[in-house]
């Protein structure tokens, strides 16, 4: 039991990071505002968690201009997808044990 808990990915311990990854698992590119809207959090809060996911290279970033306004989109990388799936498997194991 304890061993399984230790295996849980620390990056996904935070609900917002978990949320961002959940959204990116079932969508292609998602822009910053859509993420903010879905998660109902502030710009600064979201930005800091995105940075953490980016540092792990779990997500990739695409910056472009739409109607002369900067628009940043995010997508889960293969590594991110793998890590998230592993995290889900461990969550499942823990729940089954209980």
């Amino acid at each position, binding site marked *: 039991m304890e061993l399984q808990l230790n295996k849980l990915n620390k990056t996904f311990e935070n609900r917002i990071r*978990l*949320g961002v990854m959940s*959204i990116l698992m079932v*969508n292609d590119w998602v822009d910053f505002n859509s993420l903010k809207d879905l998660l109902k959090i502030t710009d600064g809060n979201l930005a800091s968690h995105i940075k953490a996911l980016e540092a792990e290279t779990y997500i990739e970033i695409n910056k472009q201009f739409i109607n002369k306004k900067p628009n940043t989109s995010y997508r889960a990388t293969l590594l991110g997808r793998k890590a998230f799936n592993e995290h889900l498997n461990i*969550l499942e194991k823990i729940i089954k044990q209980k």
Partner: protein
Amino acid sequence: MTQIEDIKEIRNLMERSTRFLSLSGFSGIFAGIFALIGAFFAWWYINQIDSIISLNIWGTGLISNPVFILILDGLLVFVFALSGGIYFSMRKAKKQGVSFWTKPSKLLLINFLIPIISGGFFCLFLIIYGFYIMIVPASLMFYGLALVNASKYTFNATLYFGICEIILGILSGIFVGYGIWFWALGFGVLHIVYGTVIYFIKDNGTAIKQIE
């Protein structure tokens, strides 16, 4: 049990980011009521047609054309139903504290409108070439296809609703002459049933949970 809450959260976000869950149950009920009014008017009009034409109460040639009147009736029902649907869904989205115009809602609308517009043209051709008896089967089947197509972007119940419309469309093609009854059943009664189902599944807002 934080793990179970994690899983719930994951599911919730996966669903909310890919499906439009603010579709209001009221909009289905509203559309159904309008369709029944429209069907009732058509039924009444068809029964009255001879006396109306002889009275020529609306004067001009185009407006006293019975086919034109029935098309107008159908179009009015469609416009009222669609605007009612958008209005109630916008209200529901506001109540849920989520945006209305998002990627899933856009995909829902586009995927719904493609078969609807194709079906609209097809029905127009049926009218132009005088195949009136096929209008009810065609409109029910195209509408059913539109619902099946759009169901990926909203509640699963939409898929079964669409399949029922397609089955009704097929039946109305077999039992021609009862078109107006099939039309009232498909666009009226089924909408009310679907709206009620949606209302009880999600209108209480359980699908949406705040993230703190």
